[in-house]
């Protein structure tokens, strides 16, 4: 793999950019791998990348039924933050944040990580108490966050309407929060993993999980059987489907989560703004589009569409908070299928089947964790035991009752 640099850019400009090498190969699947990762989204590719580069396991395949990053990796609102209430979450998401901060350099791929700040608004006494509790918990975990008064919010965001129907009473700012380019994260990890020897196999759907003596031995795919010493399922919205193939159930339900973007406009919001209270979040992409999201639809679905009335629930608070956006046209709307656990925390875990590991349940907020999730999952697969960061997210917690209940703190806004 040739490194990207200013010089390579200049050199390729001389030949009108026609001679760039392919970022990754498209090999035919081998008959057997040490580790097979199901799902070529950000988390799966990151897992493969860290397996190959840090765990000494490069005989790895990533099997993707569509194209890389075509699921929730390419459908989220690209927000990165680590301002969670509970210690286990802080461990995971701050681990990810620290990896984000060096990711472009590590991957030699510009993931456009922009720590533009993430501002969480409070609109009621309850909201103020919630950010007070969470903000202090974040401080105790050594993570940055600041309380803002409405005046400070107005100074940051002159276009905001503080006296909206539910007036802004304060805010919680994480300056290290921000956004990253979602596709570039998938592509950067894919390129890095491929260079380290990982086979990335697209357009290859897993149709079955072969289990012998309660041990996984490989996966049936649309391109035939692929043997595996270990299998890591990172299938997001289809995790329950993979689990059913392996013969067990997951504590997951799938919902559509919608997002929309506006027509591009000049820079107008230079941070990420989110509000659980009136339920909307918005940031501006580098192209100038406003990227807007809110809650998931509340019915089980794999449809990647979502219901129409939820769009109104999204743009209503947006226009209340920023009245000038009422004159913007929305260009695109889409949905991803999010796999949600009851405590709104992910699952990184061993399963009832030996050598089969699951990384799923990221629900409405997985993108921000991509590097940390892949890193923790790779080291856990390699060791055969969940590592310190992943261990609290075991599937056993739904039987022991040791839930990581971020649902109370962050069910809405991711």
């Amino acid at each position, binding site marked *: 793999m040739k490194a990207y640099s200013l010089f390579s850019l200049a050199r390729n400009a001389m030949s009108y950019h026609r001679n760039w090498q392919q970022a990754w190969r498209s090999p035919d699947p081998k008959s057997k791998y040490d580790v097979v990762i199901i799902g070529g989204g950000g988390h799966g590719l990151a897992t493969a990348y860290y397996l190959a580069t840090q765990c000494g396991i490069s005989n790895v395949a990533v099997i993707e039924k569509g194209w890389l990053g075509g699921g929730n990796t390419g459908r989220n609102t690209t927000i990165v933050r680590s301002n969670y209430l509970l210690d286990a979450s802080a461990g995971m998401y701050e681990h990810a944040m620290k990896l984000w901060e060096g990711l472009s350099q590590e991957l030699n791929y510009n993931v456009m990580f922009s720590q533009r700040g993430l501002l969480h608004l409070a609109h009621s006494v309850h909201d103020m108490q919630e950010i007070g509790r969470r903000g202090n918990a974040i401080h105790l975990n050594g993570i940055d966050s600041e309380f803002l008064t409405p005046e400070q919010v107005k100074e940051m965001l002159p276009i905001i309407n503080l006296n909206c129907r539910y007036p802004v009473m304060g805010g919680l700012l994480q300056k290290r929060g921000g956004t990253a380019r979602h596709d570039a994260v998938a592509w950067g990890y894919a390129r890095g993993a491929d260079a380290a020897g990982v086979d990335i196999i697209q357009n290859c759907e897993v149709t079955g999980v072969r289990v012998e003596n309660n041990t996984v031995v490989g996966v049936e795919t649309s391109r035939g059987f692929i043997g595996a010493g270990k299998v890591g399922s990172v299938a997001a919205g*289809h995790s*329950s*489907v993979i689990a*059913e193939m392996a013969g067990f*159930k*997951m*504590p*997951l*339900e*799938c919902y559509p989560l919608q997002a929309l973007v506006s027509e591009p406009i000049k820079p107008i919001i230079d941070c990420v703004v989110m509000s659980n209270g009136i339920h909307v979040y918005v940031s501006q992409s580098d192209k100038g589009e406003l990227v807007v999201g809110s809650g998931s639809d*509340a*019915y*089980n*679905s*794999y*449809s990647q*569409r979502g*219901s*129409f*009335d939820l769009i109104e629930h999204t743009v209503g608070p947006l226009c209340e908070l920023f009245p000038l956006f009422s004159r913007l046209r929305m260009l695109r709307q889409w949905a991803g299928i999010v*796999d949600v*656990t*009851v405590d709104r925390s992910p699952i990184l875990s061993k399963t009832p089947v030996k050598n089969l590991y699951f990384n799923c349940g990221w629900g409405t907020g997985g993108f921000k964790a991509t590097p940390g999730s892949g890193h923790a999952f790779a080291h856990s697969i390699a060791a055969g035991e969940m590592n310190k960061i992943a261990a609290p997210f075991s599937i056993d917690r*739904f*039987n*022991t*009752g040791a839930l990581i209940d971020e649902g109370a703190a962050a069910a809405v806004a991711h």
Partner: protein
Amino acid sequence: MFIINCPYCGDRDQTEFSCHGEAHIPRPTETAKMTDDEWGEYVFFRTNPKGYHRERWLHDHGCRRWFNALRHTVTDEFVATYKIEDPRPPIPGEGGRS
């Protein structure tokens, strides 16, 4: 699924309803004897199928009554809605399996 047929009220807009997950999960009776695993299974684990799904719906902004539905989770198409006490309607294409 823009229009949902309430077994009590007839066709109504979907915004009047809310979905409450998988149906036909009976509440355990011998609760004092249940293990943690059995409790976990009952409370948290779901089939979450990609395909036909029997689920509970509530007509919040109407008669406020509960009913069940058979719906496809990829097309979001309702096959049938039925009262709690009614027999389960068959899954299409599966020879009348209910």
